[in-house]
C-alpha cells in the first residue's frame, strides 16, 4: 500500500511539473513566437503607465531576455523559496509559496488567491452536495424503472440540462426568481463564519444553477452505469441464490456502479475548485475564476499564470485523492 501511495504521489508531482512547464511555455514562449518584444512583456507585468526605470527593472528582474528554461527555473524557485521584487523604487517581499507579484494591484498573487478561494469553495461545495444527492438518486431510480414514464421524463430533462449553458440558466433565474418575483435575495458572498444563514441564502441560486447542470450529467452517468451493472452475471447469481431485490441493488449493484463515478466526481471537483469561471461571472461572485478573468481582461500576466497553475494543482490533487481512495475501495488497483 505504501509503494502504491508513493508511486501515485510521484506521478502527481511529475504532472504538476509538466502542466506548470507547459503553462509557462505558453505564456512566455508563445508571445515570443508571435513577435512580442521583451519590452512588451515587461509592460504586461508592469501595470498601468509604469516609469521607464520600473520597466527596465522588471525586464531585468524577470530576465525576459534569458532562455525560457532559466525563466521557468526562476519561477519554480520563487514558488518554493519565496522571492523579493526590486522595482527600483521599493523592495517588495513575496514569501513562499510565491506565485508572482501583480504590479497592477500591488498584491502578491498568492494573497489574492487566498482571498478569493473561500468564495469558490463555498460555491462548489454547496452545489456538489445538491448535485450528488439529486443526480445519483435520479440516475438509480431511472435505471431501476427503465422505460417507465419517470425514466423517460427524467432523461429528457437531463439531456436538456446538459444542453443548457449555465450562464443562460443563471441569468434566467436572476432575471425572474430574484428580480421579477423576488423569491430569493440577490446573490452575494458573505463569510460563513459571520452568519451561516446569510451565507447560505445568498448562495442558494448559484448552487442550484450549478447543481442542475452537474445533476443532469450525473443522472445520465449513473443510469448508464447502473444498467450495465444490472446486466452483469454476478447480479444474476445474486438473484438466483434468492437474495431479496433490495439487497441485490444496495449491496451488489450500487457499489459497483458508483465507483466509476468517483473518478468523474474527483475530476469535476478539482476543475471547479480551480475556478467556476462561468458561474462566478454570471452571478458576479469574486472567486478564483473571476480572478483569472480579471487578470486576462487587465492583461495582468502574473495573476493569469498564478491562477492557471493553481487550477491545475487542484485537478492534480483531486485526482491523487481519487486514486488513493480507489486503492481503498477497489483492491485490484493497488496491485496493478
Amino acid at each position, binding site marked *: 500500500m505504501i509503494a502504491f501511495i508513493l508511486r501515485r504521489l510521484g506521478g502527481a508531482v511529475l504532472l504538476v511539473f509538466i502542466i506548470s512547464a507547459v503553462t509557462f511555455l*505558453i505564456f512566455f514562449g508563445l508571445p515570443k513566437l508571435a513577435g*512580442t518584444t521583451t519590452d512588451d512583456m515587461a509592460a504586461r507585468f508592469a501595470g498601468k503607465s509604469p516609469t521607464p526605470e520600473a520597466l527596465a527593472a522588471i525586464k531585468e528582474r524577470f530576465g525576459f531576455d534569458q532562455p525560457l528554461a532559466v525563466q521557468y527555473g526562476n519561477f519554480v524557485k520563487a514558488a518554493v523559496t519565496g522571492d523579493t521584487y526590486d522595482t527600483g523604487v521599493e523592495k517588495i517581499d513575496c514569501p513562499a509559496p510565491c506565485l508572482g507579484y501583480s504590479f497592477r494591484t500591488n498584491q502578491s498573487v498568492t494573497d489574492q488567491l487566498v482571498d478569493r478561494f473561500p468564495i469558490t469553495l463555498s460555491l462548489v461545495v454547496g452545489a456538489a452536495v445538491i448535485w450528488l444527492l439529486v443526480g445519483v438518486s435520479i440516475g438509480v431510480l431511472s435505471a431501476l424503472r427503465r422505460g417507465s414514464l419517470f425514466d423517460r421524463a427524467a432523461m429528457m430533462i437531463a439531456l436538456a440540462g446538459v444542453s443548457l449553458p449555465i450562464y443562460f440558466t443563471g*441569468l*434566467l433565474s436572476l432575471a425572474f426568481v430574484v428580480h421579477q418575483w423576488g423569491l430569493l435575495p440577490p446573490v452575494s458572498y458573505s463569510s460563513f463564519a459571520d452568519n451561516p444563514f446569510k451565507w447560505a441564502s445568498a448562495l442558494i441560486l448559484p448552487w442550484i444553477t450549478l447543481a442542475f447542470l452537474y445533476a443532469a450529467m450525473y443522472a445520465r452517468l449513473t443510469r448508464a452505469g447502473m444498467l450495465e451493472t444490472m446486466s452483469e452475471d454476478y447480479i444474476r447469481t445474486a438473484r438466483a441464490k434468492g437474495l431479496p431485490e433490495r439487497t441485490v441493488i444496495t449491496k451488489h449493484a450500487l457499489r459497483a456502479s458508483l465507483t466509476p463515478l468517483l473518478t468523474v466526481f474527483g475530476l469535476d471537483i478539482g476543475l471547479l475548485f480551480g475556478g467556476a469561471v462561468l458561474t462566478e461571472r454570471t452571478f458576479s461572485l469574486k472567486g478564483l475564476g473571476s480572478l483569472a478573468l480579471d487578470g486576462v481582461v487587465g492583461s495582468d500576466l502574473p495573476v493569469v499564470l498564478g491562477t*492557471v497553475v493553481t487550477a491545475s494543482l487542484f485537478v492534480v490533487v483531486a485526482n491523487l485523492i481519487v486514486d488513493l481512495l480507489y486503492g481503498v475501495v477497489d483492491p485490484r488497483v493497488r496491485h496493478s
Partner: protein
Amino acid sequence: MTAPIEVTGSETQAQPDAVLEGIEGKAIQGRSLGQIAWLRLKRDKVALAGGIIVILLILMAIFAPLVVKLLGHPPNEFHQDLIDPTLGGPTSSLGGMNGDFLLGLEPGNGRDLFSRIVYGARVSLLVGFMATLVAVVIGTVLGVVAGYFGGWVDWVIARLMDIFLAFPLLMFSIAVVGVLPDKWLGLEGNGLRMAILIFIIGFFSWPYIGRIVRGQTISLREREFVDAARSMGARSPYILFREILPNLVAPILVYSTLLIPTNILFEAALSFLGVGISPPTPAWGSMLTDAIRTYQIAPYFVVIPGMAIFITVMAFNLFGDGLRDALDPRSNR
C-alpha cells in the same frame, strides 16, 4: 464497406432486421451498415427531428445574408428611435417583438435581435464544426497510432490524453486567448480570433475522439481479418488505412456528432467570458454577456440568445444520440 462497428461474427451472418423481414416472407438480403443505420434512424422520430433542426440551422447560417434581407434589418443597424431613452428597453411591449422585428430589439442600441441571432449562428456553427474537425484529425491519428503500435508509443499518447482530459480547460483557454497578440500569421481581428478559437477548442477536445479510436483500434488489431491481411504480407500502412480505418468510420462519425454541441457550448462560453469573437460581430455567447447588464430591464434579452444556444445544442445531442443507437448494435435501446 460492410463491416459494422463491432463485427460480432463473420460478415455473412444475417443482421437482426434482415431476419425479421425474412420471417415476413421476403428474401433475406445483405445490407450495408449505412443502410441498416438509416433504417433504424428513420424509426427514431426524436433523432430525426434533431437532424432536421440541425439542417435548418446550417442552411440558416449559410444563407444568413439572404434570410436577414428578407425577414430582418442589418445586424449592426441601430434603431434607437424605438428604444426608451430613460430605461434603455424597447418602447413597445414584448421586447419590441412584431412583424418587423421578429425577435424584438436589443436593449440600448436597438439592433434587430432576429438578424443578430441568424448571423450569430454562423460563428457558433463554423467554430463548432471546424474545431471538431481539428479534434477528429488529431484524435484519429494519435488514437490509431497508439492503439495499433502499442508499447511505449501507446503509453505516451495515453498519458497525454489523461493530462489533457484533466486540464482546467476553460481557465487555460481564456488565459491563452488573452495573451495572444492581435495580429499573427497574416490574420487579424475576428479572422484571427476565429482561427484561434477553432484551434484551441479542437486542440483540447481531441482526447475525447482519441480515447474511443484507441480503444476500437486495440480491439480491431486482434481481429482475424487483420491477421489474415498481415499473413498475406500486408504492411502496416496498408493495414491501418485499408483494414482498420474503414471500421473506425462509424464510431468517429457518432462521437464527432456528439462533440460538435460540446464545442459549440465551449465557443459560446468563451464569447460569454469576453475572450471569444469581439463585437460588433454578433455571437450568441457575447449577447448573453450584454444581458448581464440589462436583465433587470429586459429579461427577454436573456431568453433569446440562450434559447438559440439551447435549441442548437439539444438538436445536435438528440441527433447524435440517435445516430449512436442506429450505428451501434450493442447500445441499449
